[in-house]
C-alpha cells in the first residue's frame, strides 16, 4: 500500500518537474517547484511509514519549512534581482501585509 502510494506521488512529482522544465514564465517554474516541494514532504511522510521508522517525520517537518522559505527566497531573487532588502521596490512579494 505504501509502495503504491509513494509511486503515485513520484508520478505527480514527475509531472510537476515537467512543468518546471517547460513552463513558459519563471513564475510557472517557481509554482511547479513549490508543488514539487509539497509532494516531497508527503513522499517523505509515506516513506517514513514504509520503513516503519516514524522518526523520519521530523525530516518531513523541516522540509516543509525549508520549502516555503526557499520558494519565497527564489521569488524575491526573481522579483528584485538580489537578496538585499530594498525600499524602492514596494514589491510586497514576501510580505502579505495590507499597505
Amino acid at each position, binding site marked *: 500500500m505504501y509502495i503504491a502510494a509513494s509511486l503515485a506521488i513520484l508520478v505527480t512529482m514527475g*509531472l510537476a518537474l515537467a512543468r518546471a522544465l517547460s*513552463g513558459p514564465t519563471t*513564475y510557472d517554474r517557481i*509554482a511547479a517547484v513549490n508543488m514539487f516541494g*509539497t509532494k516531497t514532504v*508527503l513522499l517523505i*511522510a509515506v516513506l517514513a*511509514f514504509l520503513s516503519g521508522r516514524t522518526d523520519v517525520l521530523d525530516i518531513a517537518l523541516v522540509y*516543509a*519549512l525549508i520549502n516555503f522559505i526557499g520558494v519565497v527566497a527564489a521569488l524575491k531573487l526573481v522579483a528584485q534581482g538580489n537578496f538585499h532588502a530594498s525600499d524602492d521596490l514596494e514589491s510586497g512579494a514576501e510580505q502579505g501585509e495590507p499597505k
Partner: protein
Amino acid sequence: MIIDILSAIFLLIGVVLGIVGAIGIHRFPDFYTRLHAAGITDTLSALMILFGLALQAGWGIAAFKLALIFVFLFFTSPTASHALANAAQHSGLKPKLEQK
C-alpha cells in the same frame, strides 16, 4: 483491519487528487489558472494523505507530527501562492481572461 482499509482509501484519494492537480498544471492555459490547480495538491490531497497515515500511526507522537506537517502546509501554501501571484502581477504578467 477496518483501519487498514480506511487508511488505504484515504491514501488512494490523496494520491489521485495529487495526480489530478498535476494534470491540471499541464492542461490549464496560463500561470494564474495553473496556480489554482496547484492549490488542490496543497490542500485536500495533502490532508487526505496525512490523514490516511495518521490512521495507521494511532494516537501518539507520530500522529502529532503529521498534524503539525499539515498545519505548516496549511499556513505556508496560501502565503506562497499569494506571493507568487502578487510578484507575477507586479512584473506585468497579464492573465488570460475569458473572451467576452
